[in-house]
């Protein structure tokens, strides 16, 4: 199997459509015959990232590179950026407004969850410029 690259533009103003890209990626991994536990980890990490983009950054782009050994996920947005990445990584820390919490998100678990379910994660963010999150999940990891 050759590595394949998938790209999705995430609209920022439509909460009801959030998750469509994650769902499509999950479906693709299933079709490719990956282990269900691995697929679940990728799906959760991408979904949290997709929700973050919709909530905080008015959308962005998700790129996924799938090889037999691992899946690399890159989330790029030109949103407001994260002033303190270390703080944002703490479970329970959230800047989500009340209307987002009413939708069931903004519990301060997004970035911690992404770290929990991935093997490698790097967050580069600049206030006023945007945020890039890179994640790697190995297919043979448990």
């Amino acid at each position: 199997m050759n590595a394949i690259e998938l790209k999705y533009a995430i609209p920022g103003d439509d909460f009801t459509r959030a998750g469509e890209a994650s769902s499509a990626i999950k479906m693709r991994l299933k079709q490719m015959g990956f282990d269900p536990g691995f697929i679940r980890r990728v799906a959760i990490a991408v979904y949290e990232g997709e929700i973050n983009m919709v909530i905080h950054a008015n959308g962005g782009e998700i790129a996924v590179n799938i090889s037999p050994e691992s899946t690399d996920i890159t989330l790029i947005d030109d949103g407001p950026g994260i002033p303190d990445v270390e703080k944002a990584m703490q479970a329970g820390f959230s800047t989500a407004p009340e209307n987002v919490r009413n939708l069931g998100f903004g519990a301060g678990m997004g970035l911690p969850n992404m770290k929990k379910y991935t093997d490698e994660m790097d967050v580069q963010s600049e206030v006023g410029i945007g945020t890039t999150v890179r994640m790697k999940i190995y297919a043979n990891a448990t």
Partner: protein
Amino acid sequence: MTISDIKNILDCTILCGEDQLGTDINTADGADMMSDVLAFAKEHGVLLTGLVNSQVVRTAEMMDMTCIVFVRDKTPDQSIVDLADNCGIVIMKTREMMFSACGKLYEAGIRSEASSI
């Protein structure tokens, strides 16, 4: 325990996935915050929630959860039911409050795999 057992215990109305009532359920989670479900829930479980929007279905889909029960007689839009149907997820609703719904399932032997962190 099967989805059919849960239906009987909580006196649920089925909104989609009637053909899957024989599916086994291993665990349950009760939450209105989907971020918490994404952090702690196990696969092949039932999600009890009072939150009604499409992201409840998306969350269950990503977590490989089998069944969603809306508590307090909350009724989702048809678009939400259709989304769940496409994902192969059973949707039911019950008149029970969240606390009593969780209590009844716990009493019947269902456990959450993560009872504390």
